[in-house]
């Protein structure tokens, strides 16, 4: 059973870091503010969730799992709110540049 947990943790860790690499590449290479925000929010949240799930698989205890689920839930709650706020600011900056 611990073998299965260790292999699942390794798979989750590598996949999560892969999504972090995608998010960083998108933030670095995409041409626009809104497209960069698209890359940062979704891929970054998925990568953090997978790495935290890998931590839960590694320790394989109940209280660590509950704590990890709380952190993942907090990330899933706050990431869209932060993205909405930044997107509104970016849209206003673009709008003012176009009208002036």
């Amino acid at each position, binding site marked *: 059973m611990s073998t299965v947990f260790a292999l699942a943790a390794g798979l989750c860790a590598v996949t999560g870091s892969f999504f972090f690499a995608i998010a960083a*590449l998108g933030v670095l290479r995409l041409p626009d503010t809104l497209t960069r925000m698209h890359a*940062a929010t979704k891929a970054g949240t998925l990568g953090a969730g997978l790495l935290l799930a890998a931590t839960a698989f590694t320790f394989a205890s109940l209280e660590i799992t509950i704590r990890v689920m709380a952190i993942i839930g907090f990330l899933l709650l706050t990431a869209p709110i932060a993205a909405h706020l930044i997107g509104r600011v970016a849209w206003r900056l673009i709008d003012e540049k176009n009208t002036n």
Partner: protein
Amino acid sequence: MSGSWSDMVLAVCVSIAAFVVAASIVCVLLRVLIGPSRADRVVALDLLAICIVGLVACLAMIDDVPALLDVALAVSVLGFLATVGFARYLERADEPSAARTLDSTATDREA
């Protein structure tokens, strides 16, 4: 402890993951440096906080310290609050008077 080879595989995978997350932090910091507008820098700082959460999770696995998950929770809360604060600041920064509300600037722009 059964399956020591799987623990070795896990250690290698977590080390690779920590290295990749650190490299992506470097890329995000480059965007913070060269970002043309202020909104780009705020986006990059938001992703930077989430990257630090992932790196702290990797460190909790490498060092076998589960208390580092509390650090991850605190960093995610701080990152969210910092993003909200930066967004509010950027919304207020371009207004001519700080006492004006958003509705009055909207009607000023229409007029």
